[in-house]
């Protein structure tokens, strides 16, 4: 059921202690900064967060990690020049890390949305990231079994939404948005613009409204 809400705080109110939260964005492109700030404000803790990175600098996801609200990160690239809050928590043994090759991260999120129970991929075969995982040889190539990543809530950013929740994105800010929207039970979207239903070309919808639950316009 789709609702348009007036504030980012209301938009994230469904996030509880222990929730798994997917957060869109790659670098700053597509990051739902305002929704992350609202997640910070709402107080939910023991979170599992799925994002490509593990926070940068002293804002957004990095702050959430600093405050000890994140129990586990599922990501592909936690180490960056300014990922000091994650680094500190990790070295202190206060945060769990599931490191996932970026393509496996994307495909596992996609699998969750598409109802796939698991899949074999050559990525990671023969590496330490396949340790403990089921493997098999298919058509002569070693492959690793990977499971879908589901989430309770996805927080994503899009360019525009129409009245039924159809979304379009902008350039490389699209990144994880469409697949996270499909993989979460409840998808919250911050958009720059809301247009009337019929205002987006049906040929060009990237995320159909069926995947969207809450929309908030962010100035």
């Amino acid at each position, binding site marked *: 059921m789709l609702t348009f809400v007036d504030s980012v705080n209301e938009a994230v109110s469904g996030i509880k202690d222990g929730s798994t939260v997917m957060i869109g964005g*790659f670098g700053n492109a597509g990051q739902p900064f305002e929704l992350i700030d609202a997640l910070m404000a709402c107080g939910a803790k023991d979170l599992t967060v799925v994002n490509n990175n593990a926070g940068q600098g002293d804002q957004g996801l990095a702050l959430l990690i600093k405050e000890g609200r994140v129990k586990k990160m599922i990501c592909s*690239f936690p180490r960056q020049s300014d990922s000091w809050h994650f680094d500190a928590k990790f*070295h202190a043994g206060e945060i769990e890390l599931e*490191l996932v*090759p970026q393509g496996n991260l*994307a495909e596992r999120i996609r699998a969750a949305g598409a109802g796939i129970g698991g899949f074999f991929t050559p990525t990671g075969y*023969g590496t330490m990231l396949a340790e403990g995982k089921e493997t098999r040889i298919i058509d002569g190539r070693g492959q690793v079994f990977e499971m879908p990543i589901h989430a309770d809530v996805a927080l994503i950013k899009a360019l525009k939404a129409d009245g039924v929740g159809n979304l379009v994105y902008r350039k490389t800010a699209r990144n994880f948005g469409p697949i996270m929207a499909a993989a979460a039970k409840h998808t919250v979207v911050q958009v720059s613009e809301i247009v009337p239903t019929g205002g987006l070309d049906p040929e060009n919808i990237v995320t159909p409204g069926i995947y969207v639950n809450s929309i908030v316009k962010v100035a």
Partner: protein
Amino acid sequence: MSAQTNSQASIQTSDKPLGREQLAELVARDIAPGSFVNLGIGQPTLVSNYLKPEQNITLHTENGMLGMGPEAEGDDIDGDLINAGKIPVTELPGASYFHHADSFAIMRGGHLDICVLGAFQVSATGDLANWHTGAPDAIPAVGGAMDLATGAKDVFVMMTLLTRDGASKIVEACTYPLTGVGCVTRVYTDKAVFLTGPDGVTVRETFGCTFEELQELVPVPLKAAAAVVG
């Protein structure tokens, strides 16, 4: 024996080791016209400066774009248009955008002709180690390296042949954690270009050293490229 001596001499194509820019220029020249290419973060990015318009190369960036143009400057900088290194870039005519799963499907499905990556080590059989030092206190971060290594039709590595300590980065077996198994097809270094594969390591050309001098540096048996022998 004299034939081999000839071959060893004939594959030395430069009096001096190549610098980073010369290496990038050489890689760029070797990319077949019309190829779809992903250039890894760091040194491989330099290759884009030497691609010629008539080569008609399409660049892919794994965060969701084909048809990536040069780095953006001034008013062209757009926070929504970045490459995998999170640097603002531009869009060329014919570009397209797609989400992350579709973008990695391009890589993982074998649709890229070439990816160019940096490396810590490459083994005699083309194993690649480029994502993790394996140090106990290091925070591991893999990004798209394993997908590129496993997915592209050809994986080109660019690196210096030797570490700062003078050890060869071409090794019998990688001691660093692997990125991919048997995936590297070509290694561009300051001292030589190597072709790697199940049959071992072949030297295509050397820079500032002879085949024999090169063999002294590298702890795996080298072959001279057959095509150059004649």
